[in-house]
């Protein structure tokens, strides 16, 4: 068989194989645990919960209209939240971002103790005892952190704990960009 014809014969199956390799290779790098949120680009959903420290005060989505802010969903029973906490405390101390909290399916006394012992990076923390506010936000695990711009729109959702590297290299630059856009 002449050489060119032989090459031609194998070209198509090889081409298909190559395509599959690329497709599946990309697929291997994706993490199905990180479900993309359909709320990105949309206004922060409405919610209305009491605060952790003071049951008489309310915490709702309106309070996040004062510049770019983070909404961090956390719980005392969540181990990664415990690891993430010092990072959040650092962010608040350095004044890099305003952080609001949403305490998810937890106990109030435990939550208050946790904040007193480990530091409270939150301007305010909502107390979502039955998780309904979480459902409205599309929360399916803890911790999750939303980045909300001054208009009240969700610009990013971070699944899992925030580590220093992610903060410095990904999230903080994103916040700066969003801030400069709004002027």
């Amino acid at each position, binding site marked *: 068989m002449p050489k060119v014809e032989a090459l031609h014969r194998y070209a*198509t*199956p090889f081409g*298909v194989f190559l395509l599959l390799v690329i497709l599946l290779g990309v697929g291997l790098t994706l993490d*199905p*645990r990180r*479900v*993309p*949120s*359909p*709320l990105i680009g949309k206004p922060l*959903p409405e919610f209305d919960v009491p605060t952790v420290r003071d049951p008489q005060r309310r915490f709702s989505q309106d309070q996040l209209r004062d510049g770019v802010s983070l909404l961090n969903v956390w719980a005392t029973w969540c181990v990664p939240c415990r690891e993430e906490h010092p990072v959040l405390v650092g962010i608040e101390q350095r004044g890099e971002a305003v952080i609001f909290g949403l305490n998810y*399916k937890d106990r109030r006394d435990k939550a208050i103790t946790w904040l007193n012992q480990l530091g409270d990076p939150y301007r305010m923390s909502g107390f979502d005892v*039955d*998780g*309904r506010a979480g*459902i*409205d*936000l*599309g929360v*399916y*695990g803890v911790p999750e952190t939303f980045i909300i711009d001054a208009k009240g729109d969700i610009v990013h959702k971070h699944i899992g704990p925030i580590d220093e590297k992610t903060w410095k290299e990904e999230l903080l630059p994103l916040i700066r960009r969003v801030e400069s856009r709004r002027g």
Partner: protein
Amino acid sequence: MERRAATPDPARRVQARLSRRRAAGLFLGAVLLAVAGAAVAAVFEPREFASAEQERRYKVLINELRCLVCQNQNLADSNAELAADLRTLAYEMIKNGDSDEQIITFMVDRYGEFVLYRPRLKASTVALWLGPFLLGAGGIWLLWRMIHRRSLLARTTQELSDDEKSRLKDLLGGDETDTERGRNA
């Protein structure tokens, strides 16, 4: 000349076939048991409904919605707390008079199309729905082309002329008796 036992004696053959059948039967039984087990794996939660239709709708919904925590399970089977919360929510929405469409939209608005085991056909899911069929059709077309080409090749290949046949015999060295002797050795 060595004696090669090509097949075991008849008795052993029957025995082998019977034990193979038993093994196959056991395997099939195990598979059926596993599948049946999964069918009744739904979390047991007593719920009261105003009508049989509501109950039917509830069961269909919790089977069609994915648990995002244990992503290979639907809400019906999952023991995750979020699944329990969403089941309760679906139940409440049905009791409230919300339609299936409203409940599904509610879930998809918050969690995306991924929450449905059968995502709705949208611009973002077209590739997902049509992909397998397109790939299948593409494969069949390639196959047809290969077979067609081969049959074309067979048709156009010419028979050897008598002259060429005798040349071939010479090239292969010797006549038929030689090859037969080799077979019976």
